[in-house]
C-alpha cells in the first residue's frame, strides 16, 4: 500500500537555520514527511497578516514585536494548524508540520500536496474540487458547483437538484461515496438528484474511469468521492455562517457550522437551509414537443423548492486511531415544471400556478435522506485497518393530481386525499459495511485486502407503477497491490470478485382490467400482473493493471481496467409510464451484468507558470444496457405512449480531456480546458447511433487575477470564465440536436480581515450575457426548456469565532 504515514498529531518544531537576518519572521510549512507544502495559507494573530507559502514551503510575515504569535496554517487535505507560540528570535525559522486530515478512504503517500498525492494513488485520471472551488462556483446543488471540470458534467434537474455525468456516463454507472459509504438513493431515475448538502462538502475527488476493483458494481464510469467537514484542529472551538443569495431563482440560504476539539475528542455540527423560487429562463414560452407553453416573466412554472440539511459528528483522534460517528439528514421538496409532467404536455391553471413563484404545487417531489456512518482507522507499524459501517434511509415521494390511464378508474376510488395525490413512493433502507486491511510486504509491495458488502430493501407505493419492490445483496472481495519499481515508478494491479443477488417481488395492478377469456368465457375483470417475481444472481471478476510514473516535470499514468454493473431492478422489471418524458418503459429480465473494458492514459508536464495535461481514453462495452425506443406503442396501461424497452448492445466510446495552464502576467493565471467524448452503438436496433446523454465537445477558458492583499482586504481575486459547448449532432431517439453556445461568467471576491475575524465575500455572475441556450445533458432538454438566464450569486462567510479555547 501507499507508504503509511505515522503521525496523527500536530508537531511543532523549532529548527535553526543559517538564514539571512531580517526584520520579518520566517517559517516553513512541511508535511509529515518534511516535504514542503506550497500554497498553504498562513495567518497570524487572527488575520492581522496573511501570506501563502512559496514553492519551497517558505513564508514571511512582518514582526510585530509582540511576545507571542498566534499562527494558523491551512492547506487542503491537512488538518488546520492553530497554535500560540512565543515570537522566535531573529534569524530563526518556524517549522510547521501539517498532519493529513482523516481520510478513511484514501491512502497517503509521500508527495508534497494533496492533488499530487491523489494523482500518485490513482492510475486513472482523477480530478479534485476543494471547498474553495465549490464556494467560488457555488451553484444550486453540488454537481453544478463542481461544474467546469473537464470530463465532468452535471445532469441538472431544475435549479436545485443535479447528478454527476462522468465522460458521458451517469445514473447507475457512477458511484458516489460519502464518508467512505456508497451513497444510495434512487439514482436510476432521471428526476433524482444527489441528496448531498454542498455546504458540508470539504472536497470532491472524481475518478474518471472504471474503479470496480475498489468499489464494486456500478463504478463503471467513475467514482465521485465526497469528504465532509474535516476533523477540527486540536484545542479549538470554531464556527462560521455562510450566507448565499441567487438572483435568478431568488434563492436565499445559508449554512451554520460549529466544530470543536479538546485533545483527542472532537465534534462537528452543521445546519443548512435553502429556499428558492421558480427559475427564470430568457424566453417567453417553450415548445414541449409541439405544444406551445407561454411562461410568466420567463419563470419555469413550479420549479421552486427548498432544502434543509442537519449534520452532526463526534469522534476520537489519537496516535494510531481515528474513530468517528456521523449522522446527517437531508430533506428537500421541489416542484416539477408543471406543463411537462403526466401523460401529455399540459396546459395548467396558469393563474393559480403563477400566483406565487415560491410555492410548490403539483407535480412535485419530496425527498428525505438519513445517513448514519461509523468510521474507524487503526494503524500500527506496517499494518493499517480501516472500516466503515453505514445505514441509510432514502424516502422519496412524487406527487401529482391523479390522472387515469389504461383501465385505471376515471375517478380515484375512496376519499383518502393523500393517496390520491401520491403518484409514486420509494422507501429504501441501505446497510453497508466496508473493511480494508493494508500492509507492506517486503520493500516493494504495498498490499490491501478488502471486503465491501451492501444490502438494500426498496419498497414502492403510489398509484402509478414503474418498478417493483426489491431487495439487493452484494458482496465483493478484492486484493490490490502496489509494486514499487524504483522511486518514481509504481505498478498497480488489482483483482476483485463480486457476487450480487437481486430479488424483485411480483406486483399486480390495484385496479381491474377487462380481459377476454381465451377459452371463450367472455370478458373477465382481472388484476393484471405488472411485474413477475425475479431472483437473479450475478457474479463478476473485475481487474485493473496500471502504471504510474512521476518525474520532476513529466508524469505518466496508464491503466487498463474492467468494470462491471449489475442490472438495476428498473432495467430488469420496469413496466410503466415515465411521466417526465411521456413514454412507456419496459424492463428486460434477460439482461446480463454490464461489463466494460477501458484503457486510460494521462500525461502531465508541469513547470512553474506552465503546465499541460492530456487524458485520452478508450472504452468498450460488450453489453451496454440501453433503453431502446421501439416503434410500437402501448394502448393498455401505457396510455398510447411509445414503448421503450431495455436491451443490451455493444458500445464503443473514446475521447479525453486536455488542460493547459499558464501565468500570462504577475498575479494572473489562465487555464484552458477541453473535453470530447465519442460514443457509438456497434450492434442492435440503434447500430451507428450514439448513447443517450452524450455531452458535446466543450472548451473553457478561465482567467483569474489575484493581486496581493492590501490593508484589510486579503487575497482578493477577480476573473472570468468563457465556456463554449459545441453543437451536438450525435443523438439517438428521442433526443434532439442541440446547438452550440458560449457563456461568459464573472467572479470576484476577497477576504476582509478585521476585529479578530476574517470575512469572505464573493460575487459571481453566471451567464452574464443572459444567453438563451439548451444544455444537451439537462433533464429538461427533451422538453426544449432552455437553461437559467443571467444569475447574480452572492455569498458571505462570517466566522463565529477565531479564538483558541
Amino acid at each position, binding site marked *: 500500500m501507499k507508504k503509511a504515514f505515522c503521525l496523527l498529531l500536530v508537531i511543532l518544531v523549532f529548527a535553526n537555520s543559517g538564514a539571512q537576518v531580517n526584520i520579518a519572521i520566517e517559517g516553513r510549512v512541511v508535511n509529515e514527511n518534511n516535504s514542503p507544502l506550497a500554497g498553504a495559507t498562513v495567518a497570524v494573530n487572527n488575520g492581522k497578516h496573511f501570506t501563502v507559502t512559496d514553492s519551497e514551503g517558505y513564508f514571511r510575515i512582518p514582526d510585530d514585536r509582540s511576545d507571542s504569535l498566534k499562527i494558523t496554517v491551512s492547506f487542503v487535505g491537512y488538518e488546520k494548524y492553530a497554535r500560540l507560540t512565543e515570537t522566535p528570535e531573529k534569524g530563526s525559522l518556524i517549522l510547521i508540520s501539517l498532519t493529513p486530515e482523516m481520510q478513511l478512504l484514501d491512502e497517503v503517500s509521500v508527495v508534497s500536496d494533496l492533488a499530487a498525492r491523489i494523482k500518485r494513488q490513482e492510475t486513472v485520471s482523477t480530478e479534485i474540487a476543494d471547498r474553495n472551488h465549490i464556494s467560488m462556483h457555488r451553484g444550486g446543488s453540488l454537481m453544478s458547483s463542481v461544474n467546469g471540470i473537464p470530463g465532468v458534467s452535471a445532469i441538472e434537474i431544475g435549479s436545485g437538484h443535479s447528478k454527476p455525468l462522468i465522460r458521458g456516463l451517469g445514473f447507475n454507472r457512477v458511484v458516489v461515496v460519502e464518508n467512505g459509504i456508497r451513497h444510495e438513493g434512487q439514482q436510476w431515475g432521471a428526476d433524482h438528484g444527489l441528496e448531498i448538502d454542498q455546504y458540508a462538502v470539504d472536497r470532491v475527488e472524481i475518478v474518471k474511469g472504471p474503479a470496480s476493483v475498489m468499489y464494486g458494481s456500478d463504478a463503471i464510469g467513475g467514482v465521485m468521492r465526497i469528504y465532509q467537514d474535516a476533523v477540527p484542529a486540536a484545542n479549538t472551538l470554531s464556527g462560521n455562517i455562510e450566507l448565499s443569495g441567487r438572483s435568478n431563482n431568488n434563492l436565499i440560504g445559508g449554512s451554520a457550522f460549529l466544530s470543536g476539539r479538546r485533545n483527542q475528542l472532537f465534534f462537528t455540527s452543521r445546519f443548512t437551509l435553502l429556499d428558492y423560487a421558480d427559475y427564470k429562463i430568457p424566453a417567453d414560452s417553450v415548445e414541449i414537443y*409541439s405544444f406551445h407553453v407561454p411562461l410568466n416573466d420567463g419563470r419555469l412554472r413550479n420549479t421552486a423548492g427548498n432544502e434543509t440539511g442537519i449534520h452532526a459528528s463526534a469522534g476520537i483522534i489519537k496516535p494510531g486511531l481515528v474513530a468517528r460517528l456521523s449522522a446527517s439528514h437531508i430533506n428537500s421538496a421541489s416542484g416539477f415544471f408543471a406543463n411537462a409532467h403526466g401523460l401529455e404536455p*399540459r396546459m395548467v391553471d396558469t393563474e393559480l400556478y403563477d400566483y406565487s413563484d415560491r410555492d410548490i404545487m403539483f407535480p412535485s417531489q419530496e425527498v428525505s435522506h438519513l445517513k448514519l456512518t461509523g468510521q474507524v482507522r487503526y494503524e500500527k507499524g506496517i499494518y493499517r485497518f480501516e472500516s466503515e459501517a453505514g445505514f441509510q434511509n432514502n424516502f422519496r415521494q412524487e406527487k401529482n393530481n391523479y390522472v387515469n390511464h389504461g383501465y385505471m378508474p*376515471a375517478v380515484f376510488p375512496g376519499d383518502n386525499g393523500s393517496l390520491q395525490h401520491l403518484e409514486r413512493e420509494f422507501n429504501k433502507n441501505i446497510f453497508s459495511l466496508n473493511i480494508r486491511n493494508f500492509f507492506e510486504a517486503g520493500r516493494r509491495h504495498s498490499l490491501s485486502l478488502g471486503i465491501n458488502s451492501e444490502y438494500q430493501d426498496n419498497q414502492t407505493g403510489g398509484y402509478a407503477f414503474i418498478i417493483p419492490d426489491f431487495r439487493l445483496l452484494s458482496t465483493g472481495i478484492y486484493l490490490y497491490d502496489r509494486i514499487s519499481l524504483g522511486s518514481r515508478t509504481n505498478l498497480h494491479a488489482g483483482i476483485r470478485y463480486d457476487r450480487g443477488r437481486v430479488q424483485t417481488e411480483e406486483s399486480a395492478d390495484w385496479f381491474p382490467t377487462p380481459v377476454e377469456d381465451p377459452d371463450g368465457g367472455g370478458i373477465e375483470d382481472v388484476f393484471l400482473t405488472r411485474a413477475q417475481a425475479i431472483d437473479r444472481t450475478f457474479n463478476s471478476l473485475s481487474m485493473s493493471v496500471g502504471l504510474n510514473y512521476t518525474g520532476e516535470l513529466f508524469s505518466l499514468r496508464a491503466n487498463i481496467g474492467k468494470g462491471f454493473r449489475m442490472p438495476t431492478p428498473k432495467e430488469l422489471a420496469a413496466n410503466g409510464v415515465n411521466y417526465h418524458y411521456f413514454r412507456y418503459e419496459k424492463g428486460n429480465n434477460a439482461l446480463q451484468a454490464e461489463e466494460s473494458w477501458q484503457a486510460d492514459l494521462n500525461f502531465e508536464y508541469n513547470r512553474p507558470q506552465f503546465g499541460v495535461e492530456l487524458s485520452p481514453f478508450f472504452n468498450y462495452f460488450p453489453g451496454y444496457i440501453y433503453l431502446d425506443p421501439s*416503434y410500437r406503442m*402501448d394502448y393498455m396501461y401505457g396510455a*398510447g405512449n*411509445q414503448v421503450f424497452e431495455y436491451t443490451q448492445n455493444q458500445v464503443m466510446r473514446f475521447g479525453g480531456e486536455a488542460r493547459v495552464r499558464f501565468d500570462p502576467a504577475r498575479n494572473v493565471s489562465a487555464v484552458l480546458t477541453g473535453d470530447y467524448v465519442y460514443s457509438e452503438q456497434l450492434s442492435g436496433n*440503434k447500430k451507428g447511433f450514439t448513447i443517450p446523454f452524450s455531452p458535446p465537445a466543450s472548451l473553457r477558458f478561465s482567467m483569474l487575477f489575484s493581486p496581493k492583499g492590501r490593508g484589510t482586504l486579503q487575497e482578493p481575486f477577480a476573473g472570468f470564465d468563457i465556456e463554449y459547448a459545441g453543437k451536438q449532432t450525435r443523438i439517438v*431517439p428521442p433526443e434532439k*440536436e442541440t446547438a452550440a453556445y458560449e457563456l461568459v461568467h464573472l467572479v470576484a471576491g476577497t477576504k476582509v480581515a478585521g476585529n479578530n475575524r476574517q470575512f469572505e465575500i464573493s460575487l459571481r455572475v453566471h451567464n452574464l450575457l443572459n444567453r438563451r441556450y439548451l444544455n444537451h445533458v439537462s433533464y429538461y432538454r427533451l422538453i426544449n426548456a432552455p437553461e437559467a438566464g443571467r444569475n447574480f450569486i452572492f455569498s458571505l462567510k462570517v466566522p463565529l469565532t477565531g479564538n483558541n479555547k
Partner: protein
Amino acid sequence: MIMKKTIIFTAILAMALYVSCDKEERDTELPEIFMGGEEHFPHNCDTIYLGESFTFRALFTDNFELGSYSIDIHHNFDHHSHSTDVAECPMDAGKAADDPFLFIRQFEIPAGLREYNASQVIEVPEGVDTGDYHLMVRLTDRTGWQAIRGISIKIIDAESQPD
C-alpha cells in the same frame, strides 16, 4: 517513450479518421402527421356524436420507414390538457367525469412505407359523457422517432340537439 508516443498518435489519428468517415447514413428525422387537409378528419374543434361512428383520416410520412400510430381520445372536462393547434376551441363549463369515453388503440402501418393514408373507423358508444375531449395521435417510425399531435374535439348527443 518515442515508441509509445507513436502508438498513441496513431491511435488518435485512427479514431479521428473513424469519426470523420461516417459510414452509413443514420435516420435523424421525425415522422410527420398531417391532419389539416380537406380529406382529413377530425380537425381541431370538430364535433363527433354519441352512438355514431366516425372515420379518422390523416396522412403520415417519414423519410425512411413508418412504424406505427396510436389514437387516444380522453376527456378534457378539467380543461387541463390543451391542443397543439394555436386556435383555442370554445369549451363547455368544467365538470367531473362520470363515465367518460376512453379510446386508446395502436394501429400497425404495413412495413416498408414512407407515406400512409390512415383511415380508421371509431365508434363512439351510447351513454358516455358528452363534452370536451382531446384526441391525440402519436406516430413513430421504425427507428423509434415519435411525433405527437393533439386536437380538441367535442362529443355531443345529436338527439338532444335542438335543430
